[in-house]
C-alpha cells in the first residue's frame, strides 16, 4: 500500500499520528500531513526514516538541539 502511516518517535516511544497519509508537505520545523479523506495535521520534527515497502511508515523524531520536540500541533 503506497499510503503510509506517520509516527512520531519521542524519546524512544513511538506514537501513531495519522493513517492513510497521501501527502506530506514540509513547513518550517515540521510537516503538514494530509490523508485520503481530507483530514490535515501538522507535526513538528524531522524525518527519521521512511519505509515504503514493508510497513509503509514514516517516522519523525524530535530535534533536541533546536529545542524542538516532536509532537502534534493541529491546524485548521
Amino acid at each position, binding site marked *: 500500500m503506497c499510503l503510509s502511516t506517520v509516527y512520531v518517535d519521542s524519546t524512544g516511544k513511538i506514537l501513531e499520528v495519522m493513517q492513510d497519509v497521501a*501527502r506530506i508537505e514540509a513547513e518550517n520545523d515540521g510537516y503538514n500531513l494530509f*490523508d485520503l479523506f*481530507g483530514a490535515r495535521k501538522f507535526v513538528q520534527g524531522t524525518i527519521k526514516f521512511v519505509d515504503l515497502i514493508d510497513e509503509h511508515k514514516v517516522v519523525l523524531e524530535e530535534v533536541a538541539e533546536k529545542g524542538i520536540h516532536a509532537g502534534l500541533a493541529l491546524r485548521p
Partner: protein
Amino acid sequence: LGDFCEAVRNTRITGANVSGSLQMKLSVCGKGGSGKSIVVSLLAHQAKARGLDVLAIDSDESNSGLFRMLGFQQQPTPLMELVGGKNSIKRKIGRSDLFSADRISIEDIPAPFVVRQNGLRLMSIGKILLSLEGCACPMGVLCRELLKKLEPDENELVIVDMEAGVEHFGRGIDENIDAIVLVVEPSMESIVLAEKIRDLSAGVRKNLHCVLNKIRSQKVSGELKKMLQAKSIEVAGIIPDDPAVFEACFKGRPIARGKAFEAADKILTRLFNPTIS
C-alpha cells in the same frame, strides 16, 4: 412473553441468520476470469428475488462490465470522485463528510455514487483509466474504509466484486466483510490460488464459501471437488456451464434465467444457513 418477544426482535445477527432476516457483507474473489462478476450478478439478482435489498460494490479497478451484467444502463460515479479523485489527492486532498462518520448506512451515500435500477443498487470504487496514472492504492484504502464503516440494515445484503487475485487481502479489505465467496473454475491456476485464499481467509478469520463455476459435467465437478477437498476446501455450490451466461458475457447484457440462477439460489441458502450441507 412480552420481554421474550422484545428480546427476539432485538436479536440481530450480523451475517447469516437462520430466522430469515440478515445483514451481511459478502466479498467475491478468485482468479482473473474465473467468473467473479458472474457470481456477483447471479447472487445479487437471486437475493433480490428473495426480497433482500442488495447493494453490489464494484471493487475491480480494471474491468468495468459488472453494471451491464446487473442490467444497469450506466455506471455510478466512482467513489474516488467523492474524495476529489486522484488529481485532487495529489494537489491538497479532497473532502468527504461521508467518511468522517463512524457508521455509514447505504442511504447515506449520495445519489451519483449509488445507481438504482430494477430493485438493485450499484456503486463503484474507481477504475484505472489512464496510462501512467499511478497505482490503485487509494482505491484500496477507500474500499477498506467504506466496508469498515458500512453497516447494512436489516435485510440488506452487500456483495463486493473484488479485484482478481489476492492483493485485496494484503490491503486489509477483507477484514471488514462477514464472509468470503471464492470462485474456482476448472483450471490448475484457479485451484492453486484457492489454496492460497483458504489460508488468507483463515488469516482474517472469515468463513470461506467455495463456488465452482463453468462446470461442464458431473465428472468435472466430481474431480474438482475431490481436488479441493484434498486441500480442505469444501464446496458450497456448483454453477453449471449455462449457455445463458456465455450469451450475457458475449453480448454484455444481464444473464437470462436458467440453470445458473437455480444454482445461485442453492448457494444463497448455504451462505445464509452455513449449517446446511
